[in-house]
């Protein structure tokens, strides 16, 4: 197991480097030359020269990449064009708002999906199975941003129960999860984020559990007189590693892919920051945010893989 863990750790390095190459290349994807996209449009010739020197933009591209990589590794992700703040500060502040709603959503999705998945897998073909499967199809088919807009229409516009957008009157700096007047503004973003992973996790639970339930040892358990609950407990332990792997993947998707829901609710997280960067064509901010989010995703995948190996003695990789 330790050998596998070491190998898995080593494998992360080339992937991480690949991610930095793609993020670096984003500047060159943007129309116009990188100097233009790194500076505000009213920059003077002196600014341009200074920037070219600072970034080494007069050097060949591989050298430029190495310089940029050196900066990135030491936490220097450049300066946002719009706010003149270091990009790293902006991203960490936004991450602090994204991580809580993503974690709550994925746990909520996991709990509901596990329940529905067990209901469905123990009654394959039955009415409850069909209802649970229909919920899962709805979950994976619904555009999260439309669900967000619809939730706003129903609960904010028509019923007036919840605030339509933002993080409450105190703003993001003084937001508290323990005051309902503020925490209630997180309710709709959390629901909108929960639905897609709920659908995916339910399908994973159902299929992997149904697969285990069809194995011979379940027959043996039934023969020795074990009840339905006991059998499910045995089966779930066998299906859990697969479900946990999907859980980790979904957590990564939510942290990196919350841009649509955060835009709908103007929730000041990383997704909202990305949207701001796109609207203002703030390429350093876009690049830095994407780099941090992709690295977070790589890390989450690493942790999940290692946990899986630790949890499941059958996996002897390496």
């Amino acid at each position, binding site marked *: 197991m330790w050998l596998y863990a070491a190998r898995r750790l080593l494998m992360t390095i*080339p992937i991480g480097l690949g*991610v930095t190459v793609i993020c670096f290349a984003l500047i060159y994807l943007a129309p116009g030359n990188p100097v233009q996209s790194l500076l505000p449009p009213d920059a003077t010739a002196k600014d341009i020269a200074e920037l070219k020197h600072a970034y080494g933009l007069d050097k060949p591209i591989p050298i430029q990449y190495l310089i940029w990589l050196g900066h990135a590794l030491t936490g220097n992700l450049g300066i946002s064009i719009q706010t003149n703040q270091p990009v790293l500060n902006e991203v960490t502040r936004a991450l602090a708002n994204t991580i809580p709603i993503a974690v709550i959503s994925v746990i909520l999705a996991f709990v509901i999906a596990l329940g529905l998945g067990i209901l469905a897998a123990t009654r394959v073909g039955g009415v409850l199975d069909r209802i649970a499967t229909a919920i899962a199809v709805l979950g994976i*088919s619904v555009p999260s941003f439309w669900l967000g*807009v619809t939730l706003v*229409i129903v609960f904010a516009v028509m019923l007036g129960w919840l605030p339509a957008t933002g993080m409450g009157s105190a703003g993001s700096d003084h937001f508290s999860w323990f005051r309902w007047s503020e925490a209630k503004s997180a309710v709709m973003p959390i629901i909108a984020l929960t639905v897609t992973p709920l659908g995916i996790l339910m399908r994973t639970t159902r299929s992997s559990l149904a697969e285990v339930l069809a194995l011979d040892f379940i027959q043996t358990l039934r023969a020795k007189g074990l009840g339905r609950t006991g059998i499910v407990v045995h089966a779930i332990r066998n299906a859990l590693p697969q479900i946990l792997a999907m859980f980790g993947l979904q957590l990564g998707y939510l942290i990196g*892919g919350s*841009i649509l829901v955060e835009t709908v609710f103007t929730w000041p997280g990383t997704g909202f920051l990305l949207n701001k*960067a796109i609207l203002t064509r703030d390429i350093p901010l876009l690049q830095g945010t994407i780099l941090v989010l992709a690295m977070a995703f790589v890390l989450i995948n690493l942790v999940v893989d290692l946990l899986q190996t630790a949890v499941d003695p059958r996996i002897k990789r390496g």
Partner: protein
Amino acid sequence: MSDLSITSRAAAAEEEREAALPRHVRGYWGNVWQRLRYDYVTLFFLGLIAVIVLSAVFAPLIAPFDPDKASMAHRLKPLFFHTNILGTDEQGRDILSRILYGGRTSLLMGIVPVVVATVVGGLFGVVAGYLGGRVGTLIMRGMDVFFAFPSVLLAVAISGSLGGGMINQLITLTVVLTPPLCRVAETATSQIRSMDFVDAARASGASTISILFHHVLVNAVSPVLVYASTLVSASILLASGLSFLGLGVSPPTPDWGLMLSTLRQAIYVQPVVCAMPGLAILITSIAFNLVSDGLRQAMDVKA
């Protein structure tokens, strides 16, 4: 005259030969069709997709209004306002007509990137899976880098840098969808490559090209097709999300995601009307998801 009698005699002989074969023997695709024929849910949603596609293609014939014709007097009208069945938008344009025309963009964004990604990703995947070794590793590790991004983030990264517009959106979606298809094709190919019948073909002197086309490709096609079909709905959702963020087609063109984004300003005036374009996305996405589930079952491909 004599020509005709020869052909009809040949046809009769052909029929006789077919009649001599036992009736219940069907090929793989025959079995697939047989299973699909009695899967009424899949058939229903296949029909729904046909309706959606036809109404997008023939939008000019069935749309009640010109989708771009604005009217200052009839802005943001409710459902069933005179002949504007689904109401009007913030410029007084008919929502139903715009949804019908918008289907063209959405279906284009759902299908074209998936087809291109299937060809490109499938090709790389089959090559990587069949050759294995250094070339295979190089291709697959290259694809792994793209898996280090959540798909929405990758789409936003590329699209956000390239800028909006239909061509950029098509490029973005194709780049996002190619790596997963490549991986599925690689897995299927490397499994087939190690099977006995491939060794038998090689032993009897078949060339690499002929093994690839006659033995490997035909067997790898079902898992790749099933996976590609699941991506159509994903592609439509992703495309409408990009349009919602302003990274899709430019404003006067009707597009479901873009309509939802502009109508969002009017939720306090006409709440129900504002939800309509999203409903079109939802219905289309459900239809494609259920048809792909049906295909998976009919083709007997494991998830």
